[in-house]
C-alpha cells in the first residue's frame, strides 16, 4: 500500500471539508491525533465542535463506523463517542471517506491521575469495568484498550472511550491491538474477542500506571509480569486482581469490578490504611496525651458539679433567709 497517497497530508487548520452526500460542511480547527487507520481532527460544523476522522483506507473506516453505530444503540450508557455522520469528501479528483463524531473533551487517564489522590484510580477502574461489562453484554469486545484510548471527561469525572478501531464482535479475531496490552504478545492467550481479552488489557493498564515508560518483553509469560508486579510496591496491593485478570480467571468484567469494589469499600482500604498508620506513627505518644486530656476534662467536670452545688446552696440560704 502506497503511503504517499495519504490524503491527510493536505489538511491544515482552516481547510473546509464538504460532504458529497449530505452537503454538510466542516472547518478544520486542529489535529487531535493520528493512528494506524487515519487522522482525527477537531472541526466546526453547524456551530458545534465535532471530531472528524479522515482515512485513506475506506474499508477500515467503514468498519469503524459500523461499530460506532452499534455502540450508539447500546441504550442507557454512552460507551463510545456518539456517531454523527459518514460522508465522502471529493478533493483533487479523489473521493476521500470521512466520518464525524462527538468531540469528547477531557484529560488522558494518566494526566488526570497526576492531579488526584490514589483512590481516584480505583474509582476510574471500577467505572471502566462497569462500561466494559455493558459492552460485552452487547456482544462486543473493546480490543485496543490502553491509556491513550481513555479520556476522563467531566466534572464529575467519568471515563470515556476514544478510539473504537479495535472493537470487535465477540468470538471474532481482535481487529487492532497494542502489543504491551495484548495477551497474545505476552504469550498468555489468543486474540479471540472475549471478555477476558479486555480484562487482560485492564491489568496491563494498572501495570503501565506503575511503569509509565512500560518495559520490554523478555521471556514473556506470567513469570515476567509477576516479577515486575512484585518489584513495584504500589502494584503489590493489586497483585491478587492482576493475577486473576492476566491469567483469565475472571469470567466477566462484572466479577472483576465487584472484586475491586469490595476491596475499595473496606474501611482499611490500602490508601486510607496507610494514611492512618502514618498518622498514628507521628503521634505515638498520643494515647497518653489523650488520657491526660481526659483527666483534665474529668477535673473540669468535678469543678462544675461543685459550682452548681454551691450556687444551689446559696439559693437555698437566700430562700431560708426570706422565710425567716
Amino acid at each position, binding site marked *: *500500500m*502506497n503511503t504517499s497517497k495519504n490524503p491527510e497530508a493536505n489538511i491544515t487548520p482552516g481547510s473546509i471539508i464538504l460532504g458529497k*452526500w449530505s452537503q454538510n460542511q466542516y472547518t478544520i480547527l486542529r489535529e487531535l491525533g493520528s493512528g*494506524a487507520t487515519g487522522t482525527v481532527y477537531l472541526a466546526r460544523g453547524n456551530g458545534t465542535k465535532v471530531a472528524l476522522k479522515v482515512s485513506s483506507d*475506506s*474499508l477500515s473506516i*467503514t*468498519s469503524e*463506523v*459500523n461499530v460506532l*453505530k452499534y455502540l450508539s444503540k447500546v441504550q442507557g450508557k454512552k460507551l463510545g463517542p456518539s456517531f454523527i*455522520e*459518514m*460522508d*465522502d469528501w471529493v478533493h483533487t479528483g479523489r*473521493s476521500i*471517506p470521512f*466520518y464525524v463524531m462527538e468531540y469528547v473533551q477531557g484529560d488522558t487517564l494518566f494526566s488526570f491521575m497526576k492531579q488526584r489522590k490514589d483512590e481516584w484510580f480505583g474509582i476510574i477502574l471500577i467505572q471502566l469495568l462497569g462500561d466494559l461489562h455493558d459492552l460485552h453484554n452487547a456482544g462486543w469486545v473493546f480490543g485496543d484498550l490502553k491509556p491513550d484510548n481513555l479520556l476522563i471527561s467531566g466534572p464529575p469525572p467519568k471515563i470515556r472511550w476514544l478510539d473504537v478501531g479495535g472493537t470487535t464482535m465477540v*468470538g*471474532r*479475531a*481482535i481487529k487492532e491491538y497494542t*502489543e504491551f496490552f495484548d495477551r*497474545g*504478545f505476552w504469550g498468555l492467550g*489468543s*486474540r*479471540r*474477542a472475549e471478555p477476558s481479552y479486555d480484562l487482560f488489557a485492564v491489568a496491563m493498564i494498572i501495570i503501565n500506571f506503575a511503569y509509565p515508560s512500560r518495559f520490554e518483553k523478555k521471556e514473556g509469560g506470567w513469570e515476567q509480569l509477576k516479577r515486575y508486579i512484585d518489584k513495584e510496591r504500589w502494584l503489590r496491593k493489586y497483585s491478587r486482581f492482576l493475577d486473576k485478570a492476566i491469567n483469565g480467571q475472571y469470567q466477566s468484567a462484572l466479577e472483576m469490578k465487584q472484586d475491586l469494589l469490595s476491596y475499595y469499600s473496606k474501611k482499611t482500604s490500602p490508601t486510607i490504611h496507610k494514611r492512618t498508620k502514618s498518622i498514628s506513627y507521628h503521634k505515638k505518644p498520643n494515647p497518653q496525651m489523650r488520657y491526660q486530656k481526659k483527666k483534665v476534662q474529668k477535673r473540669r467536670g468535678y469543678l462544675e458539679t461543685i459550682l452548681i452545688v454551691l450556687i444551689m446552696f446559696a439559693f437555698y440560704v437566700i430562700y431560708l433567709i426570706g422565710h425567716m
Partner: protein
Amino acid sequence: MRKGTLRQILLITDGCSNHGEDPVAIAALAKEKGITVNVIGILSRNEAYGEHGLKEVEDIAMSGGGISQIVYANQLAQTVKMVTQKAMTQTIHGMINKELTHILGEGQQMEDLPPEKRGQVMEVVDEFGEMVDLEVLILVDISASMDDKLPTVQESLIDLSISLNSRTGNNLFAIYAFPGKRQPIDRLIDWDPQLDSLVKTFKKISTGGITPTGPALREALELFSEKRSKQELLGGDDEYIEESGS
C-alpha cells in the same frame, strides 16, 4: 456466498534479487493464478528508508496484487500480521466489488455506494474475513545478510499464527527458505495449521551471496498447485472443510 479459500505468498527479504527470472513477472503470474503476493522488506538498524533498493519490494507486491511494507526488524511482528490481514481484506473486497459490478452494473464499486449501504457491504467483508479459510506460504530470504534478523522473523511468524488462529476460519501455513542448498527453495515447514513447530527451523543458514527471488517465487507457485492436485486426489477435502466450518 461460498466460503472458499484465500491463497497468499508472503515474501520476507532484505534485498534485491540478483539471480534468475524477474520476480515481478512471476508475481504477475501468481496473481493470474489467484494467489496474492505480499512482500515485507526488512531494513537493518542503521539503514535509512531511501537507501535500500526497495523499489523491487513494492513492484513485486503491486504486480502480485498484494501489499508491501518496508520496516525495521523490531516492527516486524505487527507488520507481518497487518500485511497478511490487510491483503486478505483487500482480496475479499476485490471479490465483493466484482459481485457488485455484476449486480449494479459496470464501474459500480463499494466506494460508489452511499455511506449507509457501504456499511452493510462492509459487514459482509468483515464476516467473510473472519470465516474464510486461508493458506499462507511464507518465503523467507536466508541469505547471509539476513542472519541477525532471523530470530525476529521467527517470532513474528509465531505471532502471525496467534492472530490468524484467533479467527473462525481455518489456516494452513507453510514456510520455505531461499536460496536452498540444492534447489531454489528449501522446505522448513510443510502445510500446518500451527507455527509452534517453528522453534528449530531457522538453524541452517546459507551463506551464498545470491538472492534468487524470481526462481523462489516460481517454486512457491508450484507448491500451491501440487497441494491442490493432492487435495483433488484425496477427494473433495476442500468441501469437507467448508461444511464443518460453516
